[in-house]
């Protein structure tokens, strides 16, 4: 069967499955809409959490990122998994015992203040929107490559699917759809990883394959180091970023993970406190299956990419001889070739082949003498540092294509390629749906019901939730079609904000009985404002890296914001009256597991 037909079959089949589940599990009450009725078994919740958590970034971008930065990728691998230890130990069981629907619910009730609640609502909405924009883009990229539609049409198709099951099914529909999506995405990630690993190293598991010794007698990692350095790249197993920067980035990603509202809310859906702990354990197992495969996929992909482009003699390959995947991705605009030395061969080495930030090509509609796509910003000179590399770099490779192109580069069967496409879509859709639900809940429940008009009925609230979900999908779709200039930085902002504003407020709410409204509000505002300003200055305000505070890049500044949050909150709380008796009783109560019951209806 042709690749196109198989792809339609896999993606179409998975969509039919998701929609079927959504119809079967549609929500009838607000409680079912917000927390799936509070009756999800821990293993299912673990799977749903894993699918919710593993976005297009984890599925598509993470292995590509590590492929290109090597050792420094550790910050992302540890940061995005270590956060679950914090969730399981510090947040999940207590929030489940508290038994409300949302993060702003906790902040508002624990700090007995609608100002605190409103700040939490703002944080929730900002975090979720910045995060969802990247997901819709991911769906668009996959559709444009495999369904041969343009990226915008792809985004619209994705919107329609999410609309169907998020608006109809609410949390209940989403949870069970996410269980199915987890199965699709984990198969789609591990099957090609097994193939790749077996092909290159003879080990089936990429976890051990990365440490294997090749026929040449060298280990995979030593081969990677040598290939990279011969071409003028940095050594794969050596870090480039400073230790302090990596440290702060990892803390920000961990605490940010633990503070993301769409992850936290998943722990409200299980029946008991005990189940909240267990489902964090399941979630991390399901996540670890993918995350521990990632370094292998990244390494093998890198070896394959370099060897395919530069050929066995390491001198480059004639463009006319390049495999079909190269031209497919070139047509999708994520690969480009600039024949700087005019020899008709594609050569890959360190350095940019195109002018401008990030060396991204700007394509024109014309084709060159080899029928390659031409660009308006190709670097004309063929100069290179002969002491470091054998030729000038002529290729632009978008990091995001690594996972998607890997099976094609390794010449795996067509059904594997189709499966990967379906997996990428599942990863993006499951996360987008979880985020949209959090946004709509924040609006209908935290804003409409708890702040603006407490008198609305359950039915009206549900209607507002669905309306808000529709509006949120349209806004997310808009961001997908017109992505903000710096997608990666925008996602870093989401983590920074979660780390600096949400995480400390919840931790202190549980572990520090003396924390009061004034301290919490001052702390949240400090964390929020300092992190936003710092990121704003360095991403949009023209700040340069040598102005970094203690060498900390914007991605890691959330950690500084969190420290400021804690300090300011303690100081302000110690100067203002302690919280009322009934609040202190609530804190005492949420520390004892018994009696969580079902999620309280208000």
């Amino acid at each position, binding site marked *: 069967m042709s690749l196109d037909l198989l792809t339609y079959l896999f993606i179409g089949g998975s969509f039919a499955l998701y929609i079927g589940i959504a119809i079967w599990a549609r929500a009838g009450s607000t409680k079912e809409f917000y927390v799936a009725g509070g009756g999800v078994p821990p293993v299912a919740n673990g799977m749903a959490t894993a699918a919710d958590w593993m976005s297009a970034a984890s599925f598509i971008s993470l292995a590509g990122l590590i492929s290109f930065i090597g050792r420094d990728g550790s910050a992302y691998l540890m940061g995005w998994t270590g956060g679950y*230890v914090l969730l399981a130990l510090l947040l999940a069981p207590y929030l489940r015992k508290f038994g409300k629907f949302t993060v702003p619910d906790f902040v508002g009730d624990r700090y007995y203040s609608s100002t605190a609640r409103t700040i939490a609502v703002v944080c929730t909405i900002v975090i979720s929107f910045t995060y969802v924009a990247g997901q819709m883009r991911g769906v668009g990229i996959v559709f444009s490559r495999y369904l041969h539609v343009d990226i915008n049409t792809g985004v619209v198709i994705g919107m329609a699917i999410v609309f169907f099951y998020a608006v109809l099914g609410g949390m209940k529909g989403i949870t069970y759809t996410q269980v199915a999506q987890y199965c699709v995405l984990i198969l789609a990630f591990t099957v090609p990883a097994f193939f790749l690993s077996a092909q290159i190293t003879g080990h089936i598991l990429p976890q051990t394959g990365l440490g294997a010794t090749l026929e040449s007698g060298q280990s995979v990692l030593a081969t990677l180091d040598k290939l990279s350095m011969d071409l003028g790249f940095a050594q794969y197993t050596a870090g480039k970023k400073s230790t302090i920067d990596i440290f702060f980035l990892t803390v920000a990603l961990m605490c940010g993970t633990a503070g993301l509202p769409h992850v936290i809310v998943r722990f409200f859906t299980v029946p008991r406190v005990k189940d909240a702990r267990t489902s964090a354990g399941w979630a991390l197992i399901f996540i670890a299956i993918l995350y521990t495969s990632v370094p292998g996929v990244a390494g093998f992909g890198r070896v394959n990419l370099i060897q395919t482009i530069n050929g066995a003699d390491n001198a480059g390959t004639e463009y006319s001889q390049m495999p079909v995947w190269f031209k497919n991705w070139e047509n999708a605009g994520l690969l480009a070739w600039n024949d700087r030395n005019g020899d008709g061969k594609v050569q890959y080495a360190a350095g940019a082949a195109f002018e401008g930030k990030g060396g991204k090509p700007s394509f024109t509609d014309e084709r060159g003498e080899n029928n390659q796509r031409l660009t308006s910003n190709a670097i004309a000179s063929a100069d290179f540092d002969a002491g470091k590399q054998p030729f000038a770099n002529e290729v632009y490779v978008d990091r995001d294509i690594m996972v998607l192109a890997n099976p094609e580069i390794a010449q795996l069967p067509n059904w594997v390629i189709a499966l990967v496409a379906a997996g990428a879509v599942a990863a993006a859709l499951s996360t987008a749906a979880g985020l949209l639900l959090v946004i709509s809940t924040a609006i209908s429940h935290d804003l409409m019901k708890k702040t603006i008009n407490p008198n609305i009925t359950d039915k009206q609230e549900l209607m507002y939730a669905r309306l808000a979900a529709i509006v949120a999908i349209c806004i997310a779709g808009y961001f997908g079609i017109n992505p903000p200039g710096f997608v990666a930085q925008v996602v870093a902002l989401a983590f920074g904000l979660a780390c600096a504003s949400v995480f400390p407020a919840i931790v202190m709410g549980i572990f520090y009985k003396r924390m009061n409204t004034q301290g919490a509000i001052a702390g949240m505002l400090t964390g929020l404002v300092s992190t936003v300003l710092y990121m704003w200055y360095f991403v949009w305000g023209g700040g340069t890296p040598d102005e970094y505070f203690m060498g900390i890049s914007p991605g890691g500044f959330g950690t500084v914001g969190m420290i400021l949050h804690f300090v300011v909150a303690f100081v302000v709380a110690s100067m203002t009256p302690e919280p009322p008796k009934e609040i202190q009783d609530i804190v005492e109560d949420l520390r004892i597991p018994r009696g969580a019951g079902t999620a309280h209806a208000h």
Partner: protein
Amino acid sequence: MSISNDQAQAYWSENLRIIMTYLAIWFVVSYGCGILFVEQLDAIQFFGFPLGFWFGQQGSIFVFVGLIWAYVASMNKLDEKYDVHE
């Protein structure tokens, strides 16, 4: 609340001790082995990986999974001991 105040206090302080123990391991494995002491550990070869690199990219994740399940077991035992389980 069905248990006395003293019991609740004792439960909470044992709980805190468990949390601190596990977080200490969590910190040493991720920030210690994966970031601060990678260079020293990289001198050691571990199944074809420099050890620090392995901790940073795989080992820490395995330890995280183990930590959560160990914590689940400890807490289940503690809940039974103080009769606050559900």
